[in-house]
Structures are given as C-alpha cells and as structure tokens.
C-alpha cells in the first residue's frame, strides 16, 4: 500500500511570527521553520500503516528551499522518499492554489492513501483534505482519530463536536488525522543517517503543468487589505489571594454585570 503524506513547513509556533509589509505574506525567514506539528501525526500514521500493510511512504511538500530541512526530518522518522514542490512561482499561493499544486503532484504519484494533518499551525484553515478530495474526486476521511484498513476497505472515526462519526470508504482515499491518533516517533540516529541517502524529487510549477495564472500570489482569490499588531490588552487588575480572592473575583464579576 503506497502512502503519500502531505507535510508543510511552518514557522515555529513558539517563535514570533510576522507578516511581510511589502506583500502581506508570511515572513518565512523571520521565524525558525519546523514541520507543522500536526503533520508529525500524519507522518507517524503513514509509517504505522505502511509497517502494518507494506508499501512505501512518500512525503509531499510545497514550500521554499528551507522546507528541505523538514523533509529531512520526515525521512529521518522513516519515510522512504519525498517530492518537493519548489518554485518562486508557487510562493504566496492561497488555499485554492495550494490544493491545485498538491493535486497536480498527486496526479503524478501512484498511491492508495493520502494523509494530511488536521490543520497547519500558521494558516489554520483545516481545509486541505476537503479541497484535495474535491479536486481528485476521492473519498474525504478527515479529522480521523482512528484509521483501520482491511484490503481496500478503510474505516475511520471522524471527530466531531458531539462525539464522532464512523465513516467507511474504499481506497484510494484522502485522510486527515487529529493529534489524538498516535504518538509521533523521534528520528533515531540510524534514521537520521539513512535519510541522507533517500531520494527527494524537486518539481517546478511547469513540471506540474501549472502556469502563473493558476498558482502563486498573483493568482490568489483573496487579498490582504491591511494588518496590524493586536493592540495590547489593557493591563488588568491582579490581586493576591489573602483569603478573600474568591470574594474579590465575585466583586469584579458583579461590577462587569456577569452576576
């Protein structure tokens, strides 16, 4: 069973993230790039399923040169190879364009299953699995907290507000996973050494048959009008509990008319 894991490099959530004033896109140089934390679960699930059912795991990333570091990490965890969509023409792509590029790349790879994270910690849209399944006409099995495969049948638990739905489909399919699904492994020393020899194929927009009208900042269907730092919250009142902390808190709530 061949599995593709879509992995994105994002600015580290712990570092300060900025937008570029020139074009309002994410300043990817300002912050350290890391593998989207939620994609670690996708890589792990891909590795586990390949271990159980046989087959290869391919990492698919669209991102700048620097994203190669995160690809290395995924290969160190145990993935077999990678495809890196790398082209200045792709920079600034919005969700629509990103899904077009990823879908075009998936059209060149033989797979039974595509696994994504539930959302990227920078864009936070949580739409890519739905968009890829729309573009490719494949079943959408998103927000999975559990994945089971028997032959070409796949079942997942789809996390929902009220609990979960059990969902079934036939392979090939698009899955996204939530962080409750597994515990991602750390790359071993052996894994890190092995990763250096694993193949990474680089593809441009032209390789994907996409032209500038379809991808990149110029093709974006949305536009940032302006942005600003959130005005700092006004410093609040902090009291130390001297045995009357609860009473003081109630006074505040009463003054604000919550009680």
């Amino acid at each position, binding site marked *: 069973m061949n599995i593709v894991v879509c992995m994105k490099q994002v600015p580290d*959530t712990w570092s*300060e*993230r900025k*937008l570029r004033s020139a074009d*309002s896109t994410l300043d990817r140089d300002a912050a350290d790039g890391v593998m989207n934390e939620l994609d670690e679960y996708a890589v792990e699930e891909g590795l586990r399923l390949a271990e159980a059912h046989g087959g290869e795991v391919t990492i698919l990333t669209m991102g700048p040169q620097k994203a190669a570091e995160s690809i290395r990490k995924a290969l160190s965890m145990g993935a077999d190879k990678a495809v890196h969509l790398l082209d200045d023409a792709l920079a600034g792509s*919005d*969700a629509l364009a990103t899904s077009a590029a990823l879908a075009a790349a998936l059209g060149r790879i033989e797979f039974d299953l595509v696994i994504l994270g*539930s959302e990227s910690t920078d864009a*936070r*849209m*949580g*739409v890519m699995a*739905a*968009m890829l*399944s*729309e573009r490719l*006409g494949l*079943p*959408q*099995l*998103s927000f999975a907290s559990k994945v089971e495969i028997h032959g070409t049948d796949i079942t997942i*638990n789809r*996390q*929902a*507000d*009220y*609990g979960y*739905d*059990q*969902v079934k*489909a036939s392979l090939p*399919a698009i899955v996204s996973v*939530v962080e*409750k699904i597994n515990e991602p492994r750390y790359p071993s020393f052996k894994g890190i050494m092995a990763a250096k020899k694993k193949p990474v194929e680089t593809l441009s927009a032209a390789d994907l048959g996409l032209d500038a009208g379809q991808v990149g900042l110029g093709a*974006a*269907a*949305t536009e*940032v*009008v*302006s942005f*600003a*730092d*959130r005005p700092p*919250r006004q410093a*609040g*009142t*902090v*009291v*130390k*509990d001297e*045995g*009357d*902390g*609860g009473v003081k*808190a*109630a006074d*505040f*709530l009463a003054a604000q008319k*919550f*009680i």
Partner: protein
Amino acid sequence: MAEILVLAEHDGETVKKVTCELLTLARRFGEPSVVWTGPGAEAGKERLAEFGAATVYVAADEDLDSYVVAPKAELLAKLVAAKSPAAVLVASTAEGREIAGRLAIKTGSGLITDAVDLGEGMVAEQSIFGGAIVVQSKVTTGTPIVAVRPNAVAPEPAPGQAQVENVTVDVSDAAKGAQVTDRVVQERGERPELTEASIVVSGGRGVGGADNFALIEKLADSLGAAVGASRAATDAGWYPHQFQVGQTGKTVSPQLYLAVGISGAIQHRAGMQTSKTIMVINKDPEAPIFELADFGVVGDLFQVVPQLTEEITKRGQG
C-alpha cells in the same frame, strides 16, 4: 437587494446561535436566505424569521447527512449557480470550513476562514498567529465565501419572511465516497455548547485530576457557563477531548473566559485570545496567562474557586 446565502447550523429542530449571528452579519450586505439541510426546518423557521431570513431553502434529503461534507457542498454550489448570491456565509466550525473549502473549488471563489467580523466592502477581520496580529482581507475572485467564528457579533433580531422553498439535489456518486455508518454522540449534559457559550470556565493541569473537575463544573454551573479544558487536562484524561480549548481544540470567543490552573501557552491562547473579558486564577504570579487577564487572582484554586462559586450563588439568591 443582493441575496446572501447563510448555511444553517441546527440540531434537527433548534437553530444554533451562530446562525443568528450570521444572519445579523448578512443583513449588513443584503437580504439573507438560509440553507437548511436535513429535517426540522418547520421547527427552526420561527427563529430564522426573527433574525431576518427572507427565504429558507430546505433540502431534506437524507443523503446530505449520510456522507461526509461533499453532498452539502454540492447543494450550496447548485444554489450559488441558481441564485447568484453576493456572498455565502458559513459558521467557522471544522465542518463549516470543509464545506466552504469544497464550495470554493466548485465555484472558483476565494475563501476566508475564521473571520471575527465583516465590514464595509465585505472586508473580513481575522485574528492570526494566536491572536497576535489582526488582518483585514477580502475575496477578490468569484462569490465571496466566508466562514465566521461563533460569537463574532451579537445577534440582533430583525423580522423576515422566512418563506420556505424546497430544493432538491442529486448527490453525485463522487460525493458519496465517504459514508457515515454510525454516529456516536457523547453526553454533554445541560451545559451550553462550548463554542456558543457566552461564559466559559476552563480548567488546566493545576486542577490536578479528573475528580477535581467537579470544582470547575460547579463554578461553571453557578454562572450558566460551558466547561473547557487545556490540552494538559484532556491529554491526562481528566476531561473529554471535545472540550479542549486551543490550537488543536475549540476556538472560543465568549463574553467572559475564566482560566483556572492554566499557564497560558501560545497554543492555548490561540483558542481563547479573542474572548471579551478574561479572568485568571493561578497560583504562579509569573504564569503568562496573567498577561491577558482583565482580572486575576494569584492564589490556590482549591481555595479561590469554591469561595467564588459560593459568592456567586449567594449573590444570585440575594
């Protein structure tokens, strides 16, 4: 007047508050029409009329709920083609965003998610990077599709006709790829829903155990609030995962957020930073969550919370 499509969120009879909020926003730009999927439209109609729905397109077909997301996107695409609305508004829930994502592709339109407001020229305000930056953006291609965060605006009534118009959609085979075979509903009791609640009381690692969450629940109940939890608390199994607030849990924007025994990691803030008023109870004065506090108590939650609960109950009776 321009027509604005609003996808209703409902539980089969009652309209959720977020739908009334979407109607309130939609009225700024035109005449709102509601899209209702599944049963219950007759029961829900009255509230839709109260918030200004001119038309209610009802698609009662069971297929819409038997398969993951795709059929609903097909229904909306059909309505967009037939009615040429000026915009489509959905709730920015996990499923709402996915429906919007598919619709954006079907209609070749731009998509904005997690909007916290919509102003002049349908410019959406978003709060990004854990709330650190406020962005104004707009859709430039196709029919604007905007997913709006619950609690973004206060719902304001304004009468509408809520004229029911039945619609059908022939769900394609491609949209029937992922079939829902079972729905497991976990009890949440009498409390308001987390993303809709006007007050949320959340507990974190400081609460110390599953049994102690009764303290948080009692405080919440004294305020008519929903209960939330940090990831440390849900990971430890002290409180169910669906109540997690933050980056990988729910995003909440209540009038009042009470963080109890929560340190305020960036991932937690991402889910609560747009709350109107924030109150903190934590024994560590250095905890970063105090940076957000409108009112904070540095103290042991096991002392402060019961006293606060008692005070609220006492004053409520007085």
